[in-house]
């Protein structure tokens, strides 16, 4: 799911200079207070996720015991036992309290599809997702920031028009469709182009051991990563471009030029650092969007990560896994955001040196 590029231009609360600490006080205390406020906010958000999950999954039509064990034949006695285990015979408030306690103890229930605890299932799938999203983000951020900087610095040039046009096209392309196209061209092969990349998974059954294993996985990673990067980097490009365009008009850039600095020094040492900070914050605010992209990409390429687990749970439907993955993914996104927010506050010299 995408975010309109123009809404990315809203710098949000973190970029609001008024949110910074007042003058005269030591710089550390306000940062600490800010961090505590942010962490408190994050805890509240995670709490809201847990509450929302409880009530959302009570909306499932029909008997929850049957919904959660779909396709598993159970006798009436077994169903009765299950209902008691799920606490369905207790009042709603008690059910809610039990749910919160279990969730906080990281007990996310049992999947009847896999016959395993959901926490274990999720733990198995975290690694591949981190590899995919991590690699993708690093490439997308560096590429997007570089190209956005170049486009803004020479705005109106052919490179700028090409970059803006390309990001507009990439923004209109559904992630999964781009994945299908790349799969068709580079994995299956079209006409004279041979299929050079694997079509699915992270490793084959005959995967080599040792250092060759890394190469083997990297070979499988190319297409999923490329898809994720293509869709995500366009947004970073647009944000960096508009953020740098805002800086170019500022007086200090003119001053730097008037001092006789070379053009690339003005860019590297004056304009870009200032444009970078709001951009990096936005990169993290939109991490939820990257997660959505990862679900599509993992589904298309059967990459064995959290996204694929979630997709399989939707398809089942396996409500226990769906519920667990949902809470874990949301929590991860909230934590990432908070970290970025606090790091931004520590790093931004405009705030730090107050």
């Amino acid at each position, binding site marked *: 799911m995408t975010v309109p590029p*123009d809404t990315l231009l*809203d710098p949000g609360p973190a970029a609001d200079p008024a949110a910074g600490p007042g003058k005269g006080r030591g710089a550390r205390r306000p940062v600490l207070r800010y961090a505590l406020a942010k962490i408190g906010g994050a805890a509240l958000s995670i709490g809201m996720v847990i509450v929302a999950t409880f009530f*959302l999954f009570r*909306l499932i039509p029909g008997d929850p015991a049957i919904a959660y064990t779909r396709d598993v034949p159970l006798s009436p006695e077994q169903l009765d036992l299950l209902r008691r285990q799920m606490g369905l015979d207790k009042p709603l408030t008690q059910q809610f309290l039990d749910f919160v306690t279990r969730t906080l103890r990281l007990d996310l229930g049992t999947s009847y599809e896999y016959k395993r605890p959901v926490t274990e299932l999720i733990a198995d799938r975290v690694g591949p997702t981190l590899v995919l999203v991590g690699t993708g983000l690093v490439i997308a951020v560096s590429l997007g920031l570089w190209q956005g900087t170049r486009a803004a610095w020479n705005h109106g040039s052919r490179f700028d028009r090409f970059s803006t046009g390309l990001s507009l096209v990439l923004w209109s392309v559904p992630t999964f469709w781009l994945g299908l196209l790349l799969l068709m061209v580079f994995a299956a092969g079209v006409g004279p182009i041979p299929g050079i990349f694997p079509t699915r998974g992270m490793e084959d059954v005959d995967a080599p051991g040792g250092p060759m294993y890394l190469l083997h996985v990297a070979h499988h990673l190319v297409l999923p990563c490329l898809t994720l990067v293509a869709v995500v980097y366009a947004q970073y490009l647009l944000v960096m471009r508009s953020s740098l365009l805002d800086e170019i008009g500022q007086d200090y850039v003119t001053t730097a030029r008037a001092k006789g600095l070379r053009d690339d020094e003005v860019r590297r040492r004056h304009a870009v650092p200032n444009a970078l900070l709001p951009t990096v914050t936005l990169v993290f605010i939109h991490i939820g969007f990257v*997660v959505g992209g990862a*679900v599509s990409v993992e589904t298309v390429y059967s990459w064995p990560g959290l996204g694929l687990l979630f997709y399989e749970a939707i398809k089942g439907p396996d409500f226990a896994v*769906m519920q667990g993955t949902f809470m874990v*993914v949301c929590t991860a996104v909230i934590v990432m955001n908070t970290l970025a927010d606090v790091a931004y506050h520590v790093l931004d010299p405009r705030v730090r040196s107050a």
Partner: protein
Amino acid sequence: MSVTRTRRRAAFSRFRREYRRQRAGLYGAAILVAAVVLALLTPLITDPAGMDVTKATGAKMSPPSLDFPMGTDESGRSVLLMVLWGSRVSLLIGFMSALLSMTIGTVMGIAAGHFRGWASAVLMRITDWFLVLPSLVLALVLAAILGGGTSTIILAIGVTSWASTARLIRAQTLSVEARPYIERSRALGAGHWHIMTRHVLPNVAPLVLANTTLQVASAIVAESTLAFLGADSGSVSWGGMLRGSYDWGAATSGAWWYVLAPGLCIVAVVMAFTLCGRALEAVLNPRLRGASR
């Protein structure tokens, strides 16, 4: 009354004049009109019987030919016919969920900007929560829990995509409410409702219009993604067709027409909406007017 009308007419003709200068916006509008007209005409110019898998006449997965300009699908239906009928579902869901999303976003944004203190804080807390959460994941969960159907998909997309609009509208509301005439109106005894609907709403309406256009674009992408990931509305849409192409291995077996046709339609329509939205924004948003973006 007539003074207002003259002023509105003048504003509208100024808007038309400025929009015409946006070349990309004109192309976008042309594609949009064509897509909507085709979608509306589909029941008149085609026979819905061709959509029935049991009455399909073509060979299975055959490449484009004179009879089937875009080839056929896994059960021998014409891909062209499916694309035409699918456009109705995709556009309907796109428009309706954008409408829902904009309504929630505008109400939340104006309320969060107008009221002060804890009410505003609570509203912004909720908005930020929705902004940060992965909306696709939330929409998938909603669609899976509520069960299939067009209205479920519209609800799932609308409820998960309004947060950025609310942010935008709130910022605009704050700037409108800082103007002296609001204070004057308040001094004359205007209530919350009067200020929000008579003064703030007309001022944020242009922004809402531009944002809705962009929102339709992302709603169509969202619909196709949901359908591809298995949360479809039960009727053939572009995303649902791509789901079918994936299930039948069209991408890996070289049935390129089945993958390309619906995908290109999505990209064309989404780009058209985006171009229109950006053009509208350039014309209507005072912040961007005259800026070199």
